């Protein structure tokens, strides 16, 4: 493990995230190379858009020489933006807000157990969290200082079993620990829809799963794939918890959890032309591939929105895109 578990993730989200992303590497025929500038730009851009105020919606279109991997890196940016860690004070405040019996998730080793909160108690000048994970047996005490092992459980109530082995934590790799800011456990345990990608799902999934990336620290090279960080709901096993994004085909019927997503990434002109009307209040990133048949139609439709815009956005022009990418952004009415 490197000097700080989440150092790279924090830096990736800072203004100088381009420099931090230099530590992400990808495979070239001769070995490992720093992530190309256009990938880092897409991560930065998606993070900026995801962090923008919800109203008015921010709309960004990118004209690209190819849209391969563009949605994948934008998803990474959106997910990281929504995954900023919380402070110990904030976590303690959350613990203190719990009422006896409230459901919690507790990490023990590589497993997650569901538990019921009891109280915060003081012993020998130290604060402890008290909780149970089984119907029978005694209560557990965790010092509050290590209480990041305790996280919210996405349930309204919890029924404790007689015995509990817990669920194996999927996806907690050293690559993820290095990349994700804050507490990776919280990242894995809590579902949060940071973005919806409207795309050809099989190809998007292949891009997320097949390309091996790495982060180099003093411990060595930590390898992984983008699928570990993007945590796309429909690509995860049904028992997995902690999704971070979702991918849908342009013609899909949408459930209500998707229509309120804060950021939509349209992977290609046809995805944009077909599905953008489903998300009038979300932020958009529209990825337009110059080689797509419907490219000109996609550009024309986006420009139509630009003509009717509320205002120009203040933050995008500072992003300094690589010259392979042209972009247009506006704040929608």
């Amino acid at each position: 493990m490197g000097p700080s578990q989440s150092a790279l993730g924090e830096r990736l989200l800072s203004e100088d995230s381009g420099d931090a992303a230099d530590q992400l590497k990808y495979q070239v025929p001769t070995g490992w190379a720093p992530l190309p500038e256009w990938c880092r730009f897409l991560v930065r851009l998606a993070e900026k858009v995801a962090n923008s105020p919800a109203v008015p919606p921010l709309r960004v279109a990118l004209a690209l020489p190819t849209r391969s991997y563009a949605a994948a890196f934008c998803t990474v940016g959106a997910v990281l933006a929504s995954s900023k860690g919380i402070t110990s004070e904030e976590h303690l405040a959350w613990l203190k807000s719990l009422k006896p019996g409230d459901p919690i998730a507790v990490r023990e080793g590589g497993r997650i157990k569901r538990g019921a909160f009891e109280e915060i108690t003081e012993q020998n000048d130290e604060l402890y969290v008290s909780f149970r994970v089984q119907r029978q047996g005694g209560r557990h005490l965790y010092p509050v200082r290590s209480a990041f092992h305790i996280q919210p459980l996405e349930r309204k109530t919890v029924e404790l079993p007689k015995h509990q082995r817990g669920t194996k934590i999927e996806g907690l790799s050293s690559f993820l620990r290095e990349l994700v800011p804050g507490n990776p456990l919280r990242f894995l345990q809590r579902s949060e829809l940071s973005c919806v990608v409207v795309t050809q799902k099989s190809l998007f999934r292949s891009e997320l799963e097949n390309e091996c990336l790495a982060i180099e620290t003093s411990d060595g090279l930590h390898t992984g794939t983008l699928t570990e960080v993007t945590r796309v709901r429909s690509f995860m096993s049904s028992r997995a918890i902690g999704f971070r994004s979702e991918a849908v085909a342009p013609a899909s019927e949408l459930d209500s959890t998707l229509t309120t997503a804060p950021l939509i990434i349209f992977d290609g002109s046809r995805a944009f032309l077909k599905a953008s009307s489903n998300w009038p209040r979300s932020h958009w990133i529209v990825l337009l591939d110059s080689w797509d048949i419907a490219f000109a139609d996609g550009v024309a439709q986006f420009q139509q929105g630009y003509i009717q815009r509320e205002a120009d956005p203040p933050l995008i022009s500072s992003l300094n895109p690589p010259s392979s990418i042209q972009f247009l952004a506006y704040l929608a009415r």
Partner: protein
Amino acid sequence: MRIRPLQLHNVDRRHQASEQARLYRHTAHHSPFAELSYSITELQRALGENARDETFWAPLLREWKRFRYLASVLPLPFNSPILWSDEAKTLCGRKLKVVRQVASSIEAETAEKIDQALNELRQSGDSPLRDLLGNCLGEQGPGESAILLQDSRHLQLVSSSLCEVVGTSATVLSPVQLKASNNFDRLFLIGPSKWYQLPLLAAPRADELHVLQYDWLSDTNKTTPVFDGVRETGFKGKEFQLVRGIHRRERLLEDEEMLPAQDWHSILRAAARKSEDDFDEVEAKLYLLEDSHGVFFEEDSSVLALDIEIGDLERLAVHELERGMYLALRTEGGGDYMIELADLILGKVHPQARELQKVWKTRLREIIRRRGLTAVGQALTKRGAIRSSPQNVRNWASSKLIRPESDNDFKAILFYTNLRDESQRYLDAARAIDSAHRKAARRIRRRLISEVRKADFTQLELKGRLDFELPGSEGGKLTLFRIRDVSPEAINVASWQVGKPLLLEERRSWLG
């Protein structure tokens, strides 16, 4: 199998090419060909509207312009048969005879001069574009080169000609193949870059883009921003650098004079067949497909299509079809596939059910022939029909429709055609046929989806068509065809033509 994703380092090469690619132009000059090209344009301008006259001017101009265009985009000698076929020569000879008799002396004289110049070129082994390409390729260092042609039909011919004469091992490819390829070190375009209608300057698939063209043709000289009228979009332009030849600024021939255009009137007229059965005429648009095929579809119908960007086979409304999508059509097996399969599903009862269907339709058509659609519609209304407009009556009589949607309408027809006593038999038969057709449609779709999922879409992208053998009782061949274009207008065609792929004559796709 879905489209395989590129590896990230290959994607990065595409971005790098977009940022850093160098654009080079090489021009060739050939005086007799240049003069011939000018003469064709001048004559066309002088003729004005008469240039569209199909009796002689339009066919003549079409053949001359075809020669001029092909000689401008293919690195082949002027005497190559693909540029000027015997069929074209015969046709022009015939039309010129008419011109001599009826056209004004100036126009006839110009036409004679063009014909003479063209005949001289046809004897010539000159090949300015191939020579230029040979010189360029000879000067290149190591690395992978590719030659881009506009039309995949010419790949093999050009490839073997270049291999034989120039001795190059460069890959010759079509735009569709280039789109799916990894980047090259050098890409050679034959003909002006804008004729390709591809983002070759903004997003080239090579580190160097070389345009080889005649100096009397216009072309774009620099890249332009994607988003119109907007500042600060991240746009940094690139410009061509002239390496060989001259950069002519006058007497340039423009795209609209040079490029082939779809002669829809001519294509539609050739594709549509006269129906023997007046009641089976429908209004349909023609979809031009890869590999010189076409297919008619009624606008309010639906079709099984593959959207390769979305990656699935789905039934789409015909009005949703676009260029670049893929249609699933039966290309082998004969007859109407749906009917064959529906008959199999009907089993033993199919001859009787079909016979009953034939009886009421034949009687209805006979009455329509005698009394007309409006009168029949009114008569049916009196007998309880609720939707007997002339158009609906026509549809009910058509063999494409199994039965009226409403039982009231159907019963009125049976009453009117003196089949009232056996109406239950006719209703049952029609219901059985309808149900069998629905089952057949679902079965075909399932089978096709299963076959398509095993297919290599990369091959489909490269070739524009892909054949599937369907095993078992549904045997036959289905083909996915890429849509190249859609006719702007619908025309009346025989209903049996709808949905069936037609082999089209390539010669028709030119405006004179």
